[in-house]
């Protein structure tokens, strides 16, 4: 209850008297619908000053309430709403960033997997080529060794055959020479010399 309402409540009789004093002439004076409305309000105890005071009182109360209670509450509410909206925006942004990060991570994983598969395939190819090269080299070396061994064996065989042939020839010639030396007598040698002289003359 405001100060004005308390003041009005402290002097009801005086006001009622004054209202009655004013009401009589007013009633006498009132004409038309407005006068009827005022008369109706007067019958329900609503007089004009009192109504004005109540209106002022209500206006002050409404202003004070609005200024010190409703407006801060509305501000806080708006701030909360704004914060909630900002949170929602941040959350959406964070979710988008998370999705992008997940997508990026998945893409990187896929790329890394592809790269790993590629490196693995290259390593397998390299290993296969190295094995093939080593195999070819070993085969070439084997062929070379076999060829050299065959050539050496053949050379040894030919050398041995030549040595054997030379030895046999030497033995045959030595034997023939000894046989001739032991078996040829002077008459035979003389005939051979005579034949040689005839051969020289031809």
């Amino acid at each position: 209850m405001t100060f004005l309402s308390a003041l009005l409540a402290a002097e009801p009789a005086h006001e009622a008297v004054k209202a009655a004093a004013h009401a009589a002439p007013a009633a006498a004076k009132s004409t038309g619908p407005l006068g009827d409305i005022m008369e109706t309000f007067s019958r329900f105890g609503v007089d004009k000053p009192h109504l004005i005071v109540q209106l002022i009182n209500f206006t002050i109360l409404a202003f004070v309430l609005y200024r010190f209670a409703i407006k801060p509450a509305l501000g806080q509410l708006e701030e909360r709403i704004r914060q909630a909206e900002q949170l929602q925006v941040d959350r959406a942004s964070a979710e988008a960033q998370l999705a992008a990060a997940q997508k990026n991570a998945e893409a990187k994983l896929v790329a890394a997997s592809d790269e790993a598969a590629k490196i693995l395939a290259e390593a397998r190819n390299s290993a296969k080529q190295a094995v093939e090269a080593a195999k070819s080299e070993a085969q070439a070396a084997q062929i070379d060794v076999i060829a050299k061994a065959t050539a050496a064996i053949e050379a040894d065989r030919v050398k041995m055959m030549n040595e054997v042939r030379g030895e046999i020839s030497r033995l045959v010639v030595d034997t023939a020479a000894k046989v001739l030396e032991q078996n040829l007598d002077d008459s035979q040698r003389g005939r051979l010399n005579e034949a040689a002289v005839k051969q020289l003359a031809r």
Partner: protein
Amino acid sequence: MSAASVRAEAKRLLALSLEGGVVSADLVGAVLAELTKSRPAHQLRPLLRAYLANIRRELARGEARIEHAGPLASTEADAIAAHFSRLLGRTVRPVARRNDALLAGFRVRVGDDVTDLTASLRLANLAKSLS
């Protein structure tokens, strides 16, 4: 004296020692006597050595050195020498020597030329062809 001049002098002395294309013992003796008188000792030795080599070579050119296995009749030796005289266009006399290691046949050396008709050479060629 240089080696070339020694060889030239020895060649000239050899020409002085020939009589009818044959080495003459008298002319050789005269050349040696003249040399010992006219040349100092330090020049004489190389010159005499070269002269001796030329004389030997010239004598070898005029000899058919016959190595033979078994007996070789003098007629056969003369026939051999006559063959080489005709072949070389100069007189060649036979010098025979027996060598039974040749097995059979003979080998003739005239100067630097060698003709071998021995059984030992045939056997050596056979051994070479077999080996």
